[in-house]
């Protein structure tokens, strides 16, 4: 699944660690999401969307 997490994070000038802290996950987990090695659960996707003030569909796109 493609996502815009990295673009949204860097636009706010946050490090992966900072974003992880705001979401309650580790820096490695943020990196795994940004590099598309890992698709977050629905609750975490909602948290990410809420934090960036966007909908889940605006951040995560189905690659197929």
């Amino acid at each position, binding site marked *: 699944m493609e996502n815009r997490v990295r673009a949204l994070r*860097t636009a706010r000038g946050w*490090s*992966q660690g900072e974003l*992880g802290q705001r979401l*309650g*996950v*580790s*820096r*490695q*987990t943020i*990196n*795994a999401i*940004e*590099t598309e*090695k*890992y698709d*977050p*659960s629905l609750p*975490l996707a909602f948290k990410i969307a809420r934090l960036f003030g966007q909908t889940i569909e605006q951040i995560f796109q189905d690659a197929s």
Partner: protein
Amino acid sequence: MMKSSTTRRLGLVLVFVGAPLLQFAMPYANWIRTSAAIAAGLMLVFFAREGIHDERVQELKLRAVTVAFSVSFTLTLILHWFLNRDFDVTRDFDGASMAMRSISAFDLIIVTMATALALFLYWRWQDGISDDGRSPSTTS
């Protein structure tokens, strides 16, 4: 509830201090006793909660232990075949000589937990590497 770091430290102490003491400092060295200590220690280390125990950690741990069980059970069967030329894992000892003809359950746990730990740490390390191969500390 015990803190995650305490659980991990207890496991490491069991593996690196408890097990050698049991094997070399006690009278009548007994591998089964030692392997039980190592198995318990590795289980404590693997199942200890991480500093940030998020959903990715849970997923990787579950995946690591699933792969590790398959790997270790296959290794056990292969080893058993080499020792006995059959797959009858219910026959642990040679009746006449009492020679061990298969690995014990504690040995199986040691192989499983060591494999699971190695896989988990490797995948976690890979999670920290960005697309361009930069180390975690330099990824902004």
